[in-house]
């Protein structure tokens, strides 16, 4: 499993490197408005081809770019029911605190677990390669976090069950 992680992250890193070419672009329809075009999708000439990178049947990454914004949606591997619940709760926890992350989207795109929205303003304030490092690091850490959570839930469950059943010995 780890053998495909490196190429998967490298592919995402290279694609993000190429796709993160954002510039300021005021809204064409409404004057004095400036909206992330990837969210609105109102003008096809402002959008690039969306890219779907799948590692296997359960893990994938959708990268959609436009002239002034870039949206990255991730689907994290969920092997069983417990991981499903843990992932949902953990990523919902992060999404609700999206203000602190700045580049996080409050609601994930339909069909994915978590989404990022990077605009030209983020690229002006922060360095492009650091943003990409953040996204890739996030993907690596998510897997570790979910495994740790699962292990701690199982350990606690085992301890509680042992203690509870001791009274019946």
């Amino acid at each position, binding site marked *: 499993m780890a053998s495909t992680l490196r190429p998967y992250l*490298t592919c995402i890193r290279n694609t993000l490197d190429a796709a993160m070419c954002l510039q300021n672009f005021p809204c064409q329809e409404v004057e004095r408005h400036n909206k992330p075009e990837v969210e609105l999708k109102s003008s096809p000439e402002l959008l*690039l*081809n969306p890219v779907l990178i799948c590692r296997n049947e359960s893990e994938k990454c959708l990268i959609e770019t436009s002239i002034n914004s870039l949206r990255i949606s991730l689907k994290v591997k969920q092997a069983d029911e417990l991981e499903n619940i843990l992932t949902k709760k953990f990523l919902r926890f992060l999404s609700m605190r999206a203000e602190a992350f700045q580049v996080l989207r409050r609601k994930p795109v339909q069909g994915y677990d978590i989404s990022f929205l990077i605009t030209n303003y983020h690229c002006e304030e922060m360095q492009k390669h650091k943003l990409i490092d953040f996204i890739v690091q996030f993907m690596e850490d998510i897997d570790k976090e979910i495994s740790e959570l699962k292990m701690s839930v199982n350990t606690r469950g085992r301890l509680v069950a042992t203690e509870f059943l001791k009274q019946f010995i």
Partner: protein
Amino acid sequence: MARAGSFVEADNAEAIITRIEHKSRKIESLLKQYKPVEALKTALEGTYAMTGDERCKSAHWIAVHRALMAIKDVDGMLSSLDPEYYDILMKYLYRGLATGDRPTCDQCLRIHEKLTEKAGLGCILRFLTDTVNTV
């Protein structure tokens, strides 16, 4: 331009499908002779002249997929492939990555890494911006 001449023929979807089938047979015979690199070259060339509807694109993708999965030595393949085919190969790699099928994705990820090293980020960007010639 060589492509303009073949537009007349390419208008007919049936003719395109027949040509793709003809190419598939050639690819199969090359693969039997353990020549995966030549098979991939055959699969990739003439793609632009054959752009048609979804059926043609699917048929073409199946042929390229067959050749891609047979590649074992990625470095050797890339060094013997002409640079003009890098862009079209990148498009097919992304199509392979979108399928979600594990062996295809493994192979495509491996080739994608090496191809980006060789062709650079411009290759990826040309795929992202080309909304006209999609595969």
